């Protein structure tokens, strides 16, 4: 097709046209391809192995001992823990919206504090508290009047119930974030209108608040269900002694044998993957009907709201259970000579701290964690920003590229970290890209795991920034790059810093995938903590857990400082 323009030039115009139109599109296609490869390559390769040889891997799955129970435990854990998480998370969000003025700022951030304590640490803390015989909490409870001389319990954390409750508590923070954001966006006026119509608080909650929160709750339920399905940490640490297994722990045990039966692992992971894709699809469909819930009201001018003092108490109890008690247990054990199983206060010692800090392997692991997390963020933030930018309505990008990027940003939710880790181990320990045993495989793992989160979080930031500022910049004569650096990025600073902080926390705590891809000498703190735990030196486990918490807090504070105040508590 040759269309001569008015000046007689050919349709491809001058170099300027190519530069302005074709190169950006080529850039988007490259981006989509790179991210697509990152995300799809491990999963597709791995699942291929499950079906090779006419699906013999599936036959091997069925031959595993007690596979039926394992499957059942996996599903029951997923369902019950997500139900618990949604219930607790929604309750917390509702309470946070009713906090009295004085405690409002702390109280709104408080339910996020458990995220600072890595899952491994929290579970270990809970082991110290609720081991049937020698858990400290159990021992104290047994001494209460009316407990009638029990020798064990009353609580046993090494049980399916224990795993469900711990997992539910661990996941509730995620639900809180989604639901609380939904509540804030909803504003106070609709509930005020209901009150003015004579509705009691209970009626308001069930007829107005909950239905309007449905999109947030549905989304949160989907995310948390998938997290529960792929849950690895709690079943691994709590299930072994009680002979409880789930699909992901079975996959992990495969990596400890040689040769690693990747096909079997892929077949084990297949149901999780299938369910994950299904849930993601259902979510997209269920939330497509968004118009019902377009909140038809301008933002309220008024900040005064109905407050209830007991809301703070509820949040306080939650913090106590999920954060304070386990941390106390960890500190106590880390400075006790050994886990003594008695309430007699021992002579405290710093021996375990010095032993850990002198252990070259452990200290190396800590540094590797920090290094790989930081490098991971350095890649994830720009990459995620580009992808988020590509998803904006106002960006000119060819439809297939945009759809591909949207897909690659969503797909990782469907794949639990442990399964992704297993796949990453598979593809990167053989040609063509053999980076197993180096820090590179850790960085690639982290980027693959988090690219979806990074994109979505920055997309929210970009959308919230308001297109008009970018447009004003362009109208003032600034080119794309100048607008980006002088207008868009500074305005998004807080959002980007919040994304970086959250990503740092998630990466530094990463346990499931790291445990799969690590090698004997490239360890991160999560995986090395598992080794120490399996090796039974619990006091050192406690020390490592506390180090994880401290480093996480420092990382979050740095991100907050870089982003300006309030970057952790995003204001709307």
């Amino acid at each position, binding site marked *: 097709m040759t269309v001569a323009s008015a000046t007689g030039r050919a349709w491809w115009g001058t170099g300027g046209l190519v530069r302005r139109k074709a190169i950006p599109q080529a850039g988007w296609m490259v981006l989509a391809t790179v991210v697509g490869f990152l995300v799809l390559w491990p999963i597709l390769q791995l699942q291929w192995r499950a079906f090779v040889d006419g699906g013999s891997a599936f036959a091997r799955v069925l031959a595993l001992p007690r596979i039926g129970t394992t499957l059942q435990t996996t599903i029951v854990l997923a369902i019950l823990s997500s139900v618990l998480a949604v219930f607790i998370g929604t309750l917390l969000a509702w309470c946070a919206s009713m906090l009295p003025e004085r405690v409002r700022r702390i109280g709104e951030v408080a339910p996020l504090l458990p995220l600072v304590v890595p899952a491994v640490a929290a579970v270990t803390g809970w082991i110290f508290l609720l081991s049937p015989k020698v858990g400290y909490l159990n021992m104290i409870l047994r001494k209460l009047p009316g407990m009638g001389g029990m020798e064990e319990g009353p609580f046993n954390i090494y049980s399916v119930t224990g795993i469900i409750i711990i997992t539910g508590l661990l996941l509730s923070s995620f639900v809180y974030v989604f639901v609380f954001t939904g509540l804030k966006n909803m504003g106070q006026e609709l509930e005020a209108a209901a009150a003015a119509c004579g509705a009691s608080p209970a009626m308001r909650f069930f007829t107005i608040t909950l239905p309007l929160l449905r999109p947030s709750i549905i989304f949160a339920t989907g995310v948390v269900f998938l997290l529960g399905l792929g849950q690895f940490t709690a079943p691994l640490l709590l299930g072994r002694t009680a002979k409880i297994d789930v699909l992901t722990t079975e996959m992990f045990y495969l990596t400890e044998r040689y040769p690693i039966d990747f096909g079997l692992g892929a077949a084990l992971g297949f149901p999780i993957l299938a369910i994950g894709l299904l849930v993601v699809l259902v979510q997209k469909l269920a939330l497509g009907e968004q118009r019902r819930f377009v909140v038809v*009201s301008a933002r309220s001018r008024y900040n005064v709201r109905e407050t209830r003092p007991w809301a703070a108490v509820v949040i306080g109890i939650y913090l106590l259970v999920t954060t304070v008690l386990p941390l106390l247990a960890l500190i106590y054990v880390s400075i006790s000579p050994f886990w003594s199983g008695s309430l007699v206060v021992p002579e405290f010692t710093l021996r375990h701290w010095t032993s850990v800090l002198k252990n070259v392997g452990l200290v190396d692991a800590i540094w590797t964690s920090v290094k790989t997390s930081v490098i991971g963020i350095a890649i994830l933030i720009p990459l995620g920003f580009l992808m988020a930018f590509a998803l904006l309505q106002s960006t000119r990008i060819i439809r297939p590229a945009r759809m591909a990027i949207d897909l690659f940003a969503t797909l990782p939710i469907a794949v639990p970290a442990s399964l992704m880790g297993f796949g990453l181990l598979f593809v990167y320990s053989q040609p063509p890209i053999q980076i197993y045993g180096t820090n590179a495989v850790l960085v690639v793992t982290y980027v693959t795991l988090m690219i979806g989160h990074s994109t979505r979080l920055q997309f929210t930031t970009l959308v919230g920034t308001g297109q008009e500022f970018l447009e004003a910049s362009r109208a003032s004569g600034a080119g794309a790059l100048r607008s980006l650096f002088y207008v868009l990025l500074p305005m998004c600073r807080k959002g980007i810093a919040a994304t970086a902080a959250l990503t740092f926390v998630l990466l530094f705590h990463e346990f499931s995938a790291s445990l799969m891809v690590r090698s004997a000498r490239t360890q991160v703190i999560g995986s090395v903590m598992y080794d120490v735990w399996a090796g039974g030196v619990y006091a050192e486990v406690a020390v490592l857990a506390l180090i994880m918490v401290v480093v996480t807090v420092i990382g979050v504070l740095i991100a907050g400082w870089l982003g300006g105040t309030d970057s952790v508590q995003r204001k709307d």
Partner: protein
Amino acid sequence: MQELKVEKLVKRYPGSDRVVAVNQVDVEVEAGEMLVLLGPSGCGKTTLLRCVAGLEDAQEGRITLEGKPVFDASIGLNQPTHLRDIGMVFQNYSLWPHMTVQRNVEYPLRARGAASAERTKRAREVLDVVQCGHLTDRLPAMLSGGQQQRIALARALAPRPKIMLLDEPLSNLDALLRVELRAHLRAIHREVGFTGIYVTHDQIEAFNLGTRVAVMNAGRIEQLDSANNVYERPATEYVAKFLGIRNCLALDAQGGWHSGATKLEGDLALLDGLKGPLQMYVRPQSVNLLPTSGPAPDAGQLWLSGARVTDVLYSGGEIDYVVDLGGNTLYVTARASAMRIQAGDAVTLSFSNADALVYAQGRLAGA
């Protein structure tokens, strides 16, 4: 019988002990009356309304609805909003997006435990009153602004509450709709006869809809009177300024009343017994422009000579003249007529002494 009685209500802004949102307000609303709270943003009118609704808590005072106290700071009584039997219309309509119009309007009846058939019937009834009966199955997202506001009104009226509270309901609508709905609202008030408090910053709405108007300033009521009286005789300079009475002459009594260097001439009876300095306010519509060389003004008129027209602005059927009187800028609004006055002309300003509002120390002098 008073539907509502507010006594010595005080509400302070949170975190500030000096800035008071509602400052010792006393007001009563009679049955069937529409009391308008009028004032600029920040004067406390909405806060007062929300205190009556129970959506905000005052620190001192008492609120009584139909003889029963719902709020009394001295004994710690604070009945929650949902038990006060009110109907409230919000500036942002606040229709619930996940419910149809029918269910929105039925909601207050549900909350009061009405039976299903009764609810349906009453909702239909009140939707007909606002002329939205054909919209029962729509979702709010599919309605126009005007429709939403009418349905919000219907929802508030449905349970026949003791008192209706309207918080700037027309502010979010465009000009034409506002006029239309204002008339509609007036008609409904006449027809249904509800008792209400209406908050607005728009004086036309206030005078159109209000039985009585309360002009508020920094948490206090400056003037509470019939709409007519507030319009004709604003009690303080603040009210006069708020009503847009732009012309202000500073008068002093040195050797006869003067405004600056200009002598005030004519029937000065209304200034008898008053000591300067005084502020005299006159509406632009009440001022006549006379050519200097023309005949003298009639009896009962006051006039000032030696003014000069600096600008002439046409706005459809009216002409606005900007006039300079010894350095003081005054405005005259006149019908477009045979008067051929142009910028630069020397003119005499005259107005009836009945149209002159004289303020001494900020308050209206004389009866």
